[in-house]
């Protein structure tokens, strides 16, 4: 789990953070304005590619993507 958390964190920082804002596993990504609803599509695509899963659209909600911890919990659900 720790490795997944770090991988997702690294991707989020590389792709969506413009300055030196500190990102933790609990930083609100969607409600915190770091990842917008359009960009969620690319984040979902990254997770699906990286972990070879398919996340149904109705599960990829702003709430489910609102922190790295929540995202990894969702990914684990679909990794079986």
């Amino acid at each position: 789990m720790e490795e997944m958390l770090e991988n997702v964190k690294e991707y989020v920082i590389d792709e969506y953070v413009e300055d030196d804002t500190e990102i933790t596993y609990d930083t609100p990504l969607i409600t915190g304005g770091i990842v917008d609803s359009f960009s969620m599509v690319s984040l979902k695509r990254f997770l699906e590619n990286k972990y070879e899963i398919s996340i149904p659209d109705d599960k990829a909600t702003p709430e489910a993507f609102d922190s790295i911890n929540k995202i990894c919990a969702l990914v684990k659900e679909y990794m079986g």
Partner: protein
Amino acid sequence: MSNIGSYDKRAKNFDWNIAEKELDYKDGDLINIGWYCSDRICEMGKADKMALIWEGHAGKAKKYTYNDIRLTSNTIGDFLRGLGIKAEDRVCLFMDKIPELYLGFLGILKIGAIAQPLFSAFGDESLFVRLDNAQTRAIITQKKHVSKIRKIIDKMPYLEFIIVVDHDPSKPLQEREIAFNLEETPNVENIEIHPTKAESPSVLHYTSGTTGQPKGVKHVHYSLISQYLTTKWVLDLREDDVYWCTADPGWVTGTSYGIIGPFSLGVTQCVLDAGFSADNWYRFIEQYRVTVWYSAPTAIRSLMKAGDDVVKKYDLSSLRHLASVGEPLNSEAVIWSEKVFGKPFYDTYWQTETGSIMISNFPGMKVKPGSMGLAFPGIDSCVVDVNTYEPIKETGKVGLIAFRPGWPAMMRTYWRNEEVYNKKFQNGWYIPGDRSSIDNEGYFWFVGRDDDVINTGGHLVSPFEVESALLEHEAVAESAVVSKPDFVNMEVVKAFVNLKPGFEPSKELDLKIMNFVRKKLSPLAMPQEIEFVDSLPKTRSGKIMRRILHAKEWGEEIGDTSTLEDD
């Protein structure tokens, strides 16, 4: 009783003079939106009334009375003037929905400069083309967005000042960057308001077209007349209302109805600077007892998607009137809002160029779910034939929406692009580029755009801009960009991409290209789907036929393909 009262009576006896009188304005007087939205309200005895209740991330909140917004906008205006910013200089606002965006907008207008708000999610290329067209002299921004400006600064010798409102003193500033912290700057009690008149330029908003670069829509201070009256009659704002406009002032709704309309009426408004979540939005309405809510179909459909149970967790009984703008509001959304909120969303129709609401469902009148409503009183409107531009008399027949020019908030030109501006007028009508029919009661029914522009979540995206950005990616040989249907956003961007030799389609490349466009242009412009193809449909002269790809996505008839190239 609503502010508009009887629509029929208003339509019969209409004159923009109604707004002029209420605003104590006479032809030839000075008129300055910044002054009208702050100083005038204070002079009316409402200095201590709450003007702006702002909430940001992580529970941050600030409140400003009308006297506070008068003083803080004075302070920003004075600071800009001290830098040498003069009347009609373009000053860009490139910020999230933080208080400085709203206060800076008024401050810029007070000194007669032109406010150029830009959506803060724009990437460096989108930012550059807009600043370059406007030859912007100063940009007010946040530290989180400075890196995008630094990437393009060398190409912009005209951009003299990059004003950072939340600079971290432990970090060095670079060339042309200036720190300005509003809270640490002493308030300026009095500022000389620039003597702007009706036709003095005020705001420059950028909008996308099918071809060419984005166009700078120039508005003037006289737009206040339309914006004031439409806010009063369509949004029905009253003295004791708490109003929430969810739009970002990077787009026209966020300035016309997120700043100018409510502040000129002296109403209290709330701003939530946080990403979307159904829980957070409902909590916000409950906490601040929002009475009038102006939002977008995309947001409404996102709330529908979140389900009805979440609505029940909150007390939303304060809501009195709901309205929507940005794209057609589907009948399902109207019916859903009646079910869960006990009142419908009233759809409104207008665009960046019109500056104010043109067609609307009005408070107190029958809402026909799925209809755009009736023309605002005083707006001469119809649908015209697509070829002759003659008004269509038959009810139910589809044509182009047309407005007779002359309302106060009408754009005055496209910045440095008079030629394209002139093309917007045909046979004496202004043609917004949307198709509609009109029923036997005068209600407009939206059909679709008349061009290839993609309306995603209420924001226009130019396929040309996205295709141009795609071509800059090392793997892309050619591309075609169209819309595809989407439940929440109505349309999203889809790209058909033909790769250069040596590149193979893969999931990794797909994601790389998506992110490339997102960073270069904006998240809105990022293709939500990329289809790799061996070739694109073209005419014999080599022009890519987007309409064939569009028809395929929407399950429509492809139509005449006789000009397609031979394969």
